[in-house]
């Protein structure tokens, strides 16, 4: 069976608009912006795959190419075995899109009327559509408001209706572009449960989730890809990312009688990095990262004890997804910009 999504060297290059001055002075010059740069992915059926990256990193462009809204400049991709360029209609029959865009409804129609229209457009038979719309409205918590005009909905309700619309054609693959952008924390948590329990658990959809919420990604995603300037810079489960990126293990120690030279001693030790000391009422707190448990941890504890410091509290924790994100994608970690290309 073909994977739910397969992309090979998918690339999107946008031609930049000329200014009138450039058009007059250099009419032959074509400037381009590389939005997605040779992205290759393989996502299995039933998987929830997260796309993480800064604004403008290329997540939405990648989603638009995969759901046939945008033609790739080069490369190829298939959804459920169908080519996104040559078999766009078959792809569209099998996908749903939940965009964070709230305005993409008819504001003077009710929520139910909006769903009826999009169900017809997606060739859902009338009887099935009626039943499915009722079920979906109940599942997203809009049953009571279904017959109110869309313009009276709150941001959260609009977002929920967007999710219901994405599921109208019972898609095999659901693309979700920042689905909880306008939701308060409680609604966002409810939505995460809805995605995990209903969309993945009951419907068995494959979900591609572009998000800026680390909690959402950590809670939901089986695998993740970090995207920077159109390129996938890291990909895998959170555990794999920790391992691949060698970001180590965070240690927190509360000490008494810490000699001032201890941090420098530790800095010279291989496998120990990012040492910071904060002075608290109960004594100094030492935060640091070790490359691995075992010999490095043993050496760390030995150095501290031998320095004469007393360890009152000690704990290790895995590096969080947010820390992985910041370290991987922050400007300090940024490679030279490949996004601007000029073709003359």
């Amino acid at each position: 069976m073909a994977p739910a999504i397969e992309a090979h060297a998918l690339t999107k290059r946008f031609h930049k608009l000329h200014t009138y001055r450039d058009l007059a002075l250099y009419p032959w010059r074509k400037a381009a912006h590389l939005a997605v740069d040779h992205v290759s992915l393989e996502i299995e059926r039933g998987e929830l795959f997260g796309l993480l990256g800064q604004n403008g990193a290329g997540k939405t462009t990648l989603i638009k190419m995969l759901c046939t809204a945008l033609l790739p400049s080069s490369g190829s991709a298939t959804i459920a075995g169908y080519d996104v360029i040559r078999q766009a209609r078959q792809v569209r029959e099998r996908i749903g899109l939940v965009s964070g865009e709230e305005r993409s409804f008819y504001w003077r129609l009710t929520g139910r009327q909006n769903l009826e229209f999009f169900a017809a457009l997606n060739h859902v038979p009338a009887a099935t559509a009626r039943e499915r719309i009722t079920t979906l409205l109940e599942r997203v918590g809009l049953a009571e408001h279904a017959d109110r005009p869309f313009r009276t909905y709150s941001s959260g309700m609009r977002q929920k209706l967007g999710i219901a619309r994405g599921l109208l054609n019972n898609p095999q693959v659901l693309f979700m572009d920042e689905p909880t952008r306008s939701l308060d924390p409680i609604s966002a948590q409810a939505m995460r449960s809805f995605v995990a329990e209903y969309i993945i658990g009951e419907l068995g959809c494959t979900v591609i989730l572009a998000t800026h919420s680390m909690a959402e990604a950590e809670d939901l995603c089986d695998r993740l890809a970090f995207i920077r300037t159109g390129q996938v810079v890291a990909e895998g489960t959170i555990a794999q990312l920790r391992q691949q990126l060698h970001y180590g293990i965070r240690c927190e120690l509360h000490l008494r009688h810490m000699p001032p030279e201890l941090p420098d001693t530790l800095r010279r030790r291989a496998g120990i990095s990012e040492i910071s000391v904060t002075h608290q009422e109960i004594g100094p707190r030492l935060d640091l990262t070790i490359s691995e448990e075992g010999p490095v941890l043993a050496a760390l504890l030995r150095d501290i004890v031998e320095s004469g410091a007393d360890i009152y509290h000690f704990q290790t924790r895995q590096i969080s997804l947010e820390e992985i994100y910041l370290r991987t994608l922050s400007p300090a970690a940024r490679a030279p910009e490949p996004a601007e290309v000029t073709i003359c």
Partner: protein
Amino acid sequence: MLARLRVPWAFIVRDYRQDVSYKLGFVFRIFSVVLSVAMYYFIANVFSSAAAPFLQPYGGSYFAFVIIGVAFSEYMVIGMGAIGESIREGQTTGTLELMLLSPTRLVITLFSSSLWSYVFATLRVLVYLLVGAALGMRFGQANLPFALVALLISIVSFNGLGLFATSMIILMKRGDVLGWAVRVSSFVLSGVYYPIGVLPEWLRLVGQALPLTHALELLRRSLLLGEGLTQLWRELLILILITLIILPIGTVACNLAIRIARTDGSLSHY
């Protein structure tokens, strides 16, 4: 068959619901027809005898002439603008991309998006004709089946031109120069308000290239004089030829524009 009609029907229902939600606007658009007809009635009274020689081929009544011209030119305005307007509305509301991401064929989506405008225009045309009849227009000898065939071919032809205009909107977002030029030249050269006999010879020739010229000729003569295929076959043939040229080119232009917009990512921009 019924399943195939579901998408066009969904568009009609959507647009009807939206239109009637603006209650005052909906009623006013119907009522404005009554006012227009009354206005043309009084204008016709002013110079009916002076214009008589030019109006003889249409039965001699300026009132009947202008009502048919104004009423049926609505179909041209819709054909030229409805698809483009729907695309533009979809761009500004953000619904266009979602519509085009559905498995419904592009051509069905585009034509369906203009259907309600035609239904509403038909309602307005009926009001034009009913109020006109109440004020003295006579349709006693009208060849209704022929007029309907002529109207259908005219609508297809107008839509062909409309697809051109749509492709401009998709690419340029604003500044539908082509649509504007066709609309204005049709009103000037196709005999909406006056018989084309009053135009200089060379302008009359230019007007022959416009589908509205032939559409109005066919509709006036079939509705007012009861003429049919025997008398009007030449006009009908010209209209069919124009349609056969315009429609495929318009469809190709629109497909091309959408492909360009899908390539440069501007489909939902406005």
